[in-house]
Structure formats: structure tokens, C-alpha cells
């Protein structure tokens, strides 16, 4: 049995709301930037031209150049790639792992369930950025480490929600019936349970995307995220901040695009939440 609503109906509801429309447009724009960066970018993002450092925006360089004379527009585009790759990788890993662990916790014996919850609580008790910072300091900065570490910090979010949803659902008549006719455990989980708990998890995932983007940018700003010369929005901000008195354009454009991305994903996530689960809608 499946009690989900069709995706087209959900997106129609998102589009119907003004904020949702703005969010969706911004999200599509950022995703397009990430997907088409290699074709849109006028220059190689890491090509250094020191003689041309701190150039103001012009026809040749839409957003100007940074302290190494690199084209800022190209770096902003490729920065979107890093943001989207990290966000989607982190959310995918933590969504899948958290959901499976949450379901396992719900069906496990009380002691094992308690163990799961304690582990979730321990991880969740640390602020994500601080935990990520500590772990990156130990493991070393790299894109893969950033993804793995941030994903771990987000697993409890999904694990707790998945467990709560399964607990509410596990005695539902359609599940009892499935069990009675001999449906196997894995089939029960993947065909009957997951589709029916996916709504809140998708909402949570969409709301976590901007958080992950800002954590990645924060780690890169602090020098423990992606390694140079990769163009993360966080490193663009850091470089811009370091040379702020020479040129404010890098900080302005990197800050602007980061703000728009987080705003877009937040508005989209809220609209998605309202569409999928109107009970969670905030009272204006």
C-alpha cells in the first residue's frame, strides 16, 4: 500500500506559493550553474594571472578577478558545483544511512534501540560545524573527508525521524496484513515502510541542504574544507576577506551567491514541507 501523493501534485503546490516559486527558481538556477559550469565559465577557474589581480567587473570579467587574477565568475560557477556535490552527497548518505538505522532501531530489541538512540544523541549533541571541524582536524581536509564527516553529523536527524515514523506505522493494518500473508522483511521495509515514511524525510532533507551548504562553506572558509585551488564559495569568501581592502568584489559576489543559494533551498524546503505535510505548516 502506498499513501504518498504524486510528485507532480507536490511540485504544483510548491509553485503555487510565491515563496516556493522563488525558492524553486533559485534552486534550479544554482543546480544549473553547477551542472553547466564547464560550458558557461568563460575561463578555467584555477588559471592564475597575477598581473591581472583585483580587476573590477568588466566585459571581460563579469565579476572581476581575485587576488591571483583568477576569473571570479568562473570560480563562482565551479563553487556551485562543490556546494551541490557536497550537499547532495551528504544528504544522500545521511538520508539513506539514517533511514535504515532508524528503521532498524524501531524494530530492534529495547536494549539495541536504546544503544542506537544514545549514539544518535551523542552525535547530535555536538554542533555539526564543531564536530566537523574537530574531525577534519584529525583526518585532514579534503572533499571526500568533508562529505563523510558532515554526513555522519546529519545521520541522527534522519535516524530519529525514521524511527519515530516507523513506530507510528508499524502496527498499521496494511503492515499487519502484509506480514500475515508472508511478505519478507526486506520487502516490507523497501516496498511498504520506506515509501510511507519518505514524506517527512524528504522535507527534512530539503531543509538540511542549505545547512550543509553553509557548513561546507564554513569549513572551507576556515581552511579545513576543500583544498586549494578548488573553488568553494567558502574559500572565495576567505580569499576575499583576506584582501578586502584591495577589492570587495570577491566577498560581495561569493557572499551574494551563498546567500541566494541558502535562501533558495530554505524557501523551497519550506514550500515542500507545506505541500507534503500541511500539518507542519507554520502559522503566519
Amino acid at each position, binding site marked *: 500500500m502506498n499513501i504518498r501523493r504524486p510528485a507532480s501534485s507536490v511540485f504544483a503546490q510548491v509553485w503555487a506559493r510565491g515563496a516556493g516559486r522563488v525558492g524553486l527558481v533559485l534552486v534550479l538556477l544554482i543546480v544549473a550553474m553547477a551542472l553547466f559550469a564547464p560550458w558557461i565559465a568563460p575561463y578555467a577557474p*584555477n*588559471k*592564475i594571472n*597575477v598581473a591581472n*589581480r583585483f580587476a573590477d567587473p568588466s566585459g571581460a570579467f563579469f565579476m572581476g578577478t581575485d*587576488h*591571483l*587574477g583568477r576569473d571570479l565568475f568562473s570560480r563562482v560557477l565551479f563553487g556551485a558545483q562543490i556546494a551541490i556535490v557536497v550537499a547532495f552527497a551528504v544528504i544522500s548518505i545521511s538520508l539513506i544511512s539514517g533511514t535504515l538505522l532508524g528503521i532498524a532501531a524501531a524494530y530492534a530489541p529495547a536494549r539495541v534501540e536504546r544503544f542506537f538512540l544514545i549514539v544518535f544523541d551523542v552525535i547530535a549533541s555536538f554542533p555539526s560545524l564543531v564536530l566537523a571541524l574537530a574531525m577534519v*582536524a584529525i583526518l*585532514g*581536509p579534503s572533499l571526500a573527508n568533508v562529505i563523510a564527516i558532515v554526513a555522519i553529523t546529519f545521520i541522527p536527524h534522519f535516524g530519529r525521524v525514521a524511527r519515530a515514523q516507523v513506530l507510528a506505522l508499524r502496527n498499521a493494518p496494511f503492515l499487519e496484513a502484509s506480514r500475515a500473508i508472508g511478505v519478507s522483511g526486506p520487502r516490507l521495509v523497501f516496498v511498504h515502510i520506506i515509501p510511507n515514511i519518505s514524506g517527512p524525510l524528504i522535507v527534512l532533507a530539503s531543509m538540511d541542504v542549505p545547512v550543509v551548504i553553509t557548513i561546507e562553506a564554513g569549513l572551507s572558509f576556515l*581552511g579545513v574544507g576543500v*583544498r*586549494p*585551488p578548488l573553488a568553494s564559495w567558502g574559500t572565495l569568501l*576567505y*580569499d576575499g*576577506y*583576506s*584582501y*578586502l*581592502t*584591495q577589492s570587495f568584489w570577491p566577498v560581495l559576489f561569493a557572499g551574494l551567491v551563498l546567500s541566494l543559494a541558502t535562501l533558495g533551498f530554505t524557501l523551497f524546503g519550506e514550500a515542500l514541507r507545506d505541500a507534503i505535510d500541511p500539518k507542519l505548516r507554520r502559522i503566519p
Partner: protein
Amino acid sequence: MAATLSRRSTLKLGAAAAGAAALGFPNIVRAARDRVVVRQDRDIQILDPAFRIGAAEGNVISACCQRLASFKTGSLHYAPDAAETIKQVSDTLIEFTLKPGQMFSDGYGEMTAEDIKFSFERFGIVQKDGKKSSYASDWGALKEVEITGKYSGKIHLKNAAPAIWRTAICDTSGNILSKKAGEALGEKITSQLVGSGPYRIAKWEPNRQLVLAANPDYKGPKPVFREVIVRPIQESKTAEIALRAREIDFTRFEDPVAGDTIAKEAGLKVVKMPGMRYLWIGLNVEKAPLDNLKVRQAIRLGVDVDEALTAAFGGKVERANAMLQSSLLGYWKDAPVRKRDVAGAKKLLAEAGLAGGFKTRLTVLNQAAYKTMAQVVQSNLAEIGVTVEIEALDGGSYWSVGKGDVGKNLDMSLQLFSAKMDPSFTSQWFVSEQVGVWNWQRWTNPEYDKLHVLAASTNDEAERGKAMIRMQQLMDDSAAFIWLTYDSAVFGAAAWVKPAILPNGTDWQFGLFGEA
């Protein structure tokens, strides 16, 4: 009692507010100006003169301890400090008599000649855990300190020691510790400084601040400020913002361009001096494929030093072509000025059997200027087929990355060392004994070692100069060093602060800071 807001109280309040605004509230807060807040680019780690990491600790130690003689404000001229008299009797003998009644803090009693012997001789003693002072060279010429009376003694040297006043007696390595405290505290001596200087440590909150309070038992001239607060702020830009916000009163800028903007700001001033810190890329000669001379030569040819300096410092620093800066004895004015040669670099790599290039790592301090230079190097070397991974580390991790056996894994590192006004202080870090300590290149050369000893033990300036130039030629032959710059010494300060900075730009005399 209930507070009432009458017409009269409102007028009083208004008048007080107007008065405060007219005088400038920040000035009222700072009216007493009994403290100065100083920024250092990293946190203090070890408060032991013999085992200090560098100038960050040295500045604090020197504010809390006395020396037999000390440098005058911002100068290399010196005058007796703890000593009533101190005299170089011959090349190998210095006699001193202490002033009586100089008390150590924390109740460790009066300073005697025993404390001098303890403080100086410990530089040459291997500790129980096998550690030896990395500053042992400062007192390398010391034979013994002979105690001739409660307050008097003789410093016997093994040989002439031309640098002993500048790098030992008057400098950080000449700070006098309490023998009693050393024996009582044991290992704790590295964190609990017991001195007799103008300040004592009132509070130390790691990674936040260190508060130096005027030492009431100090017998010398009282310092101007009741407190010196030392704040560790790694980033130069953050320090610049903190200075503008008056969160700090004094800082050095790693980015000399910052000086231009600070100079335009009311209430702040900029102090500029010739740079003396030396910055270079060190190549680990033990690590393949950098153990191949041709590979090192290829890397040296592949790097565009001028481009790196323009990118990091806006071209506002002097390019270095050898170890010693022009104001030091032994400056090698004919040192080769290498221009980037991509074809030559590729040819050398091919000769080394690495025509297809290789991967390596460049370790740098996590600061904007160094990361900028690293990215230029990364880009330069990519053109000759060498893929460079940049590893940017914070101070705590960075300064231990070349130590011990861990240092064997280091590939290339962008290093910045402080200099003193004597070339032997600079050359000491590259002797064989420093491998795994501060010689992160792990480069050894017996001739270099011999020349270092010679230069440190003769008063003949011509001979010293000649030895120093030859040592730099040997370094150049090794291609283990890509010299970048002598940095710039640009400081920002509140207009009312009169900083006391020694000519090397790195050593600050907190006890002599004053009001302008």
C-alpha cells in the same frame, strides 16, 4: 526605594550623556591607559627559554625575566640589567656581579649567581627524556659558569663567541630563571614561569589571552603599563579588523598592504622597518623523488618567485636569493637570481626519469599570504608536470610537522623563521644536528657544519663573512631551498602606543612599551 524619573534627574542624565559623548566614550574607558593589548600571530606554548618555540614565547619570557644585560629600547645597544657590572675580560671570559635584592616571583627568593649558572648551563644539558634545547647553539661556546660569590661569577667560554651578547646574554636565551623554582617545579617549568622581570604572568587562558601584570617586586624601572594583554590572533586580516575596532593596540601585519589602509585611519599609526624574517620553500632531501638533485633543481627552476611575492604581498617585500638579508654580516650579494625556466625544469625532470611528472605536497601555515604563495607554486609546478597538493595547517600542527621521524614524511614546506642581528643565529638551523628539529629539509653537509662552528667562534669579521657566504653557496648547490623573501616588518598601533621593537622586527620589549 523606588527610582523616580524627575525633571531634574532627566536633566542630570542628559548632561552626563552629552558630556560623555563630547569627550568620546572610548576615551573615558581608556582614560587610565594602564594596559596595552598586543596581538601575536600564535598562542604561547612553552615558557621555558631553552625550549621555547619562537618569538611568541620569547617576548613573554623576556618581559617576565631579567637578563644580565638587556637591549635598550628598540636598539642593539645594551646596558646592565640584573647585573650591577658585567664585563668581557677576554675573548673567553666574561665577569659579572649581580645587584643584590632582586627577588623572583612566587616566593622563590633572591637571585644569586647560582641562578645564572642554572639558567645558562641548562641549554647544553640533555634532559631526562632525551630532549636537548634547540637553542643550544646560542650558548654553544659556554664552557661553564663559575660561581665566585653569592652575587658574582665568571662565564668561561670554550672559544671566542662573537654573537654571545646579541643572541645569548642580552637576548631570550639569556633570561634568568630561578634555580629553586626549576628544581621544585620540574617539568612544570615549561608552563609556570618564575622570573624577576618587570611583569609576571597573572592569567593564562590558552588560545584566548595571556595577561602580564606589573611585578611589584621588580627592582628596575617600573613599566608604563600595569598590564600587557597578549592575544593570539592567527589571521593578519582579523588582527587588522581588531586594531580598527580598538580590540587590540598593537600588531604586526603579515600583509604589508594592510599598513597602507591603517595609516589613513585616525587614531592609528603604522611603524615600518626593514624585514628580517626569512621565508623559503624547503625540500626534504630524504624523501623520494626530492632526494634527487635534478628534481630539486627542476622545482626551483619551475617556481616563479617574483609572481608568488606579487600575489601574496603586492610586491611590497624584498626578494631573497640566499639565506642572509643585506644588513647582516655574510650577505651574499652575488647570489644567483633565478628566473623561471619551464623548458629547463622539464629537461631536468626528464633527466631524472620523471618526464611524466609526479605528485608532491606543499605544507604551509594556514594564513592567507602563505596559501596564496602556495597556490602560485602549485600553478607554476603544474606547468612542468608536478602536481602539488597544498596542506594548510594551523600553527599548533604546522610547527611540529617537521619534527622527529614525522618530518621524514614531509615533502615541501613553506617556512618562515625569525632572525636576530647575527648571522650565526640564522645559520644554526641548517646544521646536521638540527635535522628533525628545525632543519626540515633534512639536508646535511659536513663542510656547512664546520663553517658554522668556525663562524660562531671567531671574532674576525672578514673570516666570518667569508664562511657565511660559502655556507650559502653550499645551500644553493643543494637546491633544497627556494628563497622567497625577507618579509616586511609593518606594524599597526594605536596612536598613543609607543612600541619597543628590536631591529629584527620580531622581538618586542613589552617591559619598555610606553605612551607616545
